[in-house]
């Protein structure tokens, strides 16, 4: 036995050395479903549980599976938590095992998957279906294209300003500021009245805080605007970024709650909903929370106003959408059918009405449906016409390790233990590791 083991051992060890080499160049899956058999599509998602999009997705999948019963079925794999979802997609990408449909909205998974040649080119499908192609404007198509080929399609658009508590503003006698100097004055006036001006956070890439940072940058100068359009920027060490950080540091020091430092998004959201803070930067998906009496006091939505960022800025850019990583022709065709369904006028209208999601489709008239359902959303769409600068948000643009570094270093920065220049240097160094 001992001799046999000694013979087997080198073979096992040699095989183990081949594992990494083989894993990077595994053969494509070639299993083909039998003709006439139901095609099952695997779709992992974080839009489950308490996620605000969960009820919409559940309804979309229910309707799709009913409509295509017997031919195509989408099987949902629930992955609660955005970060857990992104981590899992990266692992599956490494193993060349991405699911049939991948949602890339808000997370730059598309470019990574493209580097590994794992994404289906949607251009021929769009060219073959003029009505589907016409439902997207050229800006959205361009944003979801690389080298002239369309690789993903979204069912929503990112449009968000900031919300403010009209009662608290009235109490302090202020209006939403139109310049950043005016914004500081508004914050000082609120503070003088004993009102904490801002909801901020540092955890989970500091979403609430970095929406302010992105807006300061995008309304500052042409350099700032160019930076906010750059995909995976490597240099954060420039004057506009540093002065934006200076204001953010002041906001941490003077205008927010003690639990913002080291705090999660939920702290900031609760503080705004409970009237502890007067302003919060966030997207329209939060509107449904304002009317949900399990989360907010009754009638709270009537106290909420929405405004453009000082300097006339608004997050208003297309988003990355769903891409297809299915490996067989049957599954690819079925996945395209699913994408057409997800991005259909009916489904996007339903999402708009259910949770106030801004549709990507040009066929959905936002103003005609939302003013009765969500007055705050109607107001946002109205003011969006006045925005001088439209830009994308940082989370979809910056390297994942830069977002992680922000989470780690912001608390020190917020407490004044790191200067804006040091913070900019750390982010530059972190981006350089990619």
């Amino acid at each position, binding site marked *: 036995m001992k001799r046999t083991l000694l013979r087997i051992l080198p073979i096992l060890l040699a095989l*183990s050395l081949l594992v*990494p080499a083989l894993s990077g160049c595994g053969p494509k899956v070639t299993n083909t479903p039998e003709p006439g058999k139901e095609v099952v599509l695997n779709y992992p998602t974080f839009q489950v549980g308490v996620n605000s999009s969960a009820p919409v997705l559940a309804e979309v999948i229910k309707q799709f599976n009913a409509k295509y019963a017997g031919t195509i079925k989408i099987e949902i794999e629930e992955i609660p938590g955005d970060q857990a979802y992104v981590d899992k997609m990266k692992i599956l990408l490494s193993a060349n095992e991405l699911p049939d449909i991948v949602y890339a909205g808000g997370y730059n998974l598309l470019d*990574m998957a493209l580097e*590994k040649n794992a994404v289906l080119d949607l251009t021929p499908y769009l060219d073959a279906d003029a009505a589907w192609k016409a439902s997207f404007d050229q800006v959205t198509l361009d944003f979801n294209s690389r080298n002239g080929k369309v690789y993903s399609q979204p069912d929503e658009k990112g449009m968000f300003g900031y919300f403010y508590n009209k009662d608290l503003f009235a109490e302090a006698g202020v209006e939403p500021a139109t310049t950043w100097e005016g914004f500081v004055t508004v914050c000082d006036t609120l503070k003088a009245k004993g009102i904490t001006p801002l909801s901020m956070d540092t955890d989970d890439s500091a979403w609430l805080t970095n929406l302010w940072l992105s807006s300061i940058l995008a309304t500052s100068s042409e350099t700032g605007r160019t930076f906010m359009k750059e995909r995976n920027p490597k240099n954060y060490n420039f004057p506009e970024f540093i002065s934006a950080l200076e204001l953010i540091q002041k906001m941490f020091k003077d205008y927010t709650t003690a639990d913002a*430092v*080291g705090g999660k998004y939920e*702290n900031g959201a609760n503080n705004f909903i409970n009237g502890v803070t007067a302003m919060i930067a966030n997207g329209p998906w939060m509107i449904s929370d304002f009317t949900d009496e399990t989360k907010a006091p009754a009638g709270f939505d009537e106290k909420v106003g929405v405004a453009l960022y000082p300097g006339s800025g608004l997050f208003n850019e297309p988003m990355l959408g769903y891409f297809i990583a299915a490996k067989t022709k049957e599954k690819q065709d079925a996945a395209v059918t699913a994408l057409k369904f997800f991005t259909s006028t009916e489904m996007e209208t339903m999402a708009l009405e259910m949770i106030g999601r801004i549709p990507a489709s040009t066929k959905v008239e936002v103003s005609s449906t939302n003013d009765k359902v969500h007055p705050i959303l109607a107001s946002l769409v109205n003011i969006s016409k006045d925005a001088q600068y439209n830009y994308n948000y940082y989370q979809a643009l910056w390297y994942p390790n830069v977002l992680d570094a922000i989470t780690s270093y912001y608390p020190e920065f917020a407490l004044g233990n790191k200067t804006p220049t040091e913070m900019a240097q750390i982010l530059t160094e972190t981006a350089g590791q990619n």
Partner: protein
Amino acid sequence: MFLAPTLVLFLLIYAVPILTVGVTSFFDYSYATLTFSGLDNYRSLVSGTLTGREFVKAVGNTLIWIGLQITVHVALGVLVALGLSRKPFGWKTVRTAYMLPNIVSLAALGIIYLNLFDSRRGLVNGVIRALGNKDFSVNWYVEHAFLTTTLTWTLFAGLVTILILADIASIPEDIYESARIDGASGWKIDWYFTLPLVRNTIGTSVILAATSMLKEFELIYMTTNGGPGIATLNLPLLIYKKALIEQNYGLANAMGVVTIAIGVLLIVLVNRHLLSSRFEST
């Protein structure tokens, strides 16, 4: 022959992945590339770059936490076990309560600690404010991150206590009777009889405590994520960040090799100094 199934399982489940980690640590290995890069990954661990600084801090923190765990944590567990072995009133309740943190999911425990130490609504600040210091407000996981993180595991030595208690229960009563006849009592019995007799279990506890710190991840990830800055970064968290956030699997695996080396070294040292007597005596 008897060991063959275990050996095959070990080779497939542990040896192959460990070898893979070792081999790929010499590669520039990401989701899209696999290129031999020699010692580059190891060089970057000791370079003056951000990666080098993070690695040095992570190794330092890991070693400090291992040191605290094998001394303070194990000593505390042993002391509680010695106290409970005298079976004072309510000892079973205390034993169960002390064990609780060991049976709660670590992710849930992380959320509990995060809320306990929350600066505005947390119980810790609330109690201090209720005791009279009305303006007290400390952001524990930011201002005292290392200490607060350390406290989340160092004080809860329930597993050590259970192991030592079980070993104490197996000591024949006549040994204690002889000791008492010879005039020993109280702490002298503990010091000269009980502790030497449970030495091997203490050794096992030290190994468990040390290795637990080599794989501690959830509590840090859920509370500080290694911050503020890199103040609470340890090796498992850094490996996670390099592998899953930066997709630099080669670099992460080089760190993994160092972690394995530290683990093996610790086990050898503990075996030599705390567990050797049993083998020598048998």
